[in-house]
């Protein structure tokens, strides 16, 4: 195609963006602008806001609780993004390359459904059930440890500040594995099985097929899942709210829980708006960096 036809061609795709952008402006764009406006005021949710310029942001810059909650969030990213993506990738490859091919698609589907199910359970209920399981006196986890003779490891998982965050991370991994798994498995449906055949005929082991066939083929999905779970980790709220409410003693506090407290518990809406604006900007910056990296890695169509 010539350069001009290509350019004309590309413009012709613009109308497809119209519904998306129009809805976006109304539902997200305008409210975000309003949110930024509110962050420049003192307001408790009712009546007229009082102009405060950058007072909220100045207060936020010096707010130790806010910035220390980011430290916790880094570990949350590991638990909600990196680990589930890695595990999900391996499981997806196992289910597709091994179980599906050797035992048929039915077992693979059943296993996938079981592994995805934690995503379906409402976070509130998951939190309550896990707190039962992790109860230091009557909980199943300590009971099982006792039954196999590992009594010494029995612990107050959620109550001890040293273990609380790690315990919450394990629960998060439990919740999150299903998401990457399903996305990767759907992506692997696109892979031509003859590629696996050829590799196997060449004598490649499962691990080598994984690295040289599976991973490159679903690279778009991997990028998407990583970014998405990282964003979710930066916004995480539900599990913290239910399991520990940011405790014990602030050991599991995260930025979005802090923002939520300001919006609703304190009705310090101006400050809450400032927090969420800053949080959004951080996430956007991360997103742009990530998208750039993804673009660079993507092979251009010939």
């Amino acid at each position: 195609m010539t350069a001009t036809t290509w350019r004309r061609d590309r413009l012709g795709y613009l109308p497809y963006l119209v519904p998306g952008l129009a809805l976006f402006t109304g539902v997200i764009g305008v409210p975000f602008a309003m949110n930024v406006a509110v962050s420049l005021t003192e307001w408790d949710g009712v009546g007229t806001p009082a102009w405060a310029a950058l007072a909220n942001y100045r207060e936020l810059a010096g707010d130790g609780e806010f910035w220390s909650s980011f430290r916790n969030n880094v570990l949350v990213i590991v638990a909600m993004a990196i680990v589930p993506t890695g595990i999900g990738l391996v499981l997806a490859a196992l289910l597709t390359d091994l179980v599906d091919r050797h035992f048929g698609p039915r077992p693979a589907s059943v296993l996938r459904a079981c592994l995805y199910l934690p995503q379906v359970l409402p976070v509130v209920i998951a939190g309550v059930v896990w707190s039962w399981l992790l109860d230091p006196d009557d909980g199943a986890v300590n009971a099982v440890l006792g039954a196999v003779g590992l009594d010494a490891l029995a612990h107050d998982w959620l109550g001890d500040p040293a273990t609380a965050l790690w315990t919450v991370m394990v629960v998060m991994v439990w919740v999150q594995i299903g998401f990457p798994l399903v996305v990767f498995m759907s992506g692997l449906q696109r892979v031509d099985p003859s590629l696996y055949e050829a590799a196997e005929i060449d004598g490649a082991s499962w691990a080598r097929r994984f690295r040289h066939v599976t991973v490159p083929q679903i690279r778009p999905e991997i990028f998407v899942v990583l970014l998405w779970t990282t964003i979710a980790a930066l916004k995480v709220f539900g599990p913290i709210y239910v399991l520990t409410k940011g405790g014990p003693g602030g050991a599991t506090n995260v930025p979005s829980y802090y923002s939520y407290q300001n919006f609703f518990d304190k009705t310090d809406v101006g400050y809450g708006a400032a927090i969420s604006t800053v949080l959004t900007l951080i996430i956007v910056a991360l997103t742009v960096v990530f998208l750039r990296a993804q673009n660079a890695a993507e092979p251009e169509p010939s």
Partner: protein
Amino acid sequence: MTERSAGTIAARAGGVPALGRRGGGKRRRGPSAYATLVALVALAAVMLIPFAVVLLNAVKTPEDYSANGPLAPPERVSFEAITGFWERVGFGQVLLNSALISGSVAVLAVLLSVLNAYALGIGRIKGRMWVLAVLLLANTLPQESLVYPLYYLSKQVGLYDTRLSVIIVFTVIQSAFGTYLLSSVLGAFPRPLLEAARIDGAGRWRVLWQVVVPVIRPTLAVLAVFFFVWTWNEFLIPLVFLVGNDNQTVSVALGVLQGQRLMDATMSSAASLLGLLPTVVFFLIFQRTLSRGLTAGAVK
């Protein structure tokens, strides 16, 4: 489509060995294959333990729960928690509301994502990375920051306390993920397929629906499932937008049980069970579409 790929599709759908693909009959299953299968089944069982706990508690009487604790099996099976909750919140109506909202969002958000991703991934318009970053804002914004502005806007247009407002909001929010995933997938879409169709004289619209969509159908099914499940479990926005009890969704109705100081454990478990089942059913239905579908091998 060649015979070979047709056979491949049949193989994927039904586990029937394809000609020239498996050399007649299932592969030899070595001991390592069995070992992996056992490990995976064990993992799946562990994942399901909390569900078993919910089920146990949903069929207990409150006295049983108080006497024996949450992790003991029920002394006798009783459905009073389930029926009690159903009547207390008018669960039939609540289910309908959730199904209506989640179902609509699932379909509409997928549609919106397809349209967006087509322009971004295949159309490759200029500045597509920035457009994508902007659209992603829909999901990166913490929901608390949207609540007050959307409350005011919805009051202005008279949509406060309607399910339509919730549908619109979530369609936009969920389509962010759909746009991102699909534009990444479509970015790697095999060009020869598109060229072939264009040479045949198909316009952009026809190429979208007759060439692109059939190939990415598994991904669309995945998106539909995700959107349904995510919207079903959404709490904050339905809480704020849906005031009258006629409009409540399942997640909000669950909140009725969470008193300020007391929580009714057996009824909460019963409620979760009731709220779970539709999403599980939805997922199982769509499982079949996830496994079936044309592979990109159709090119050859």
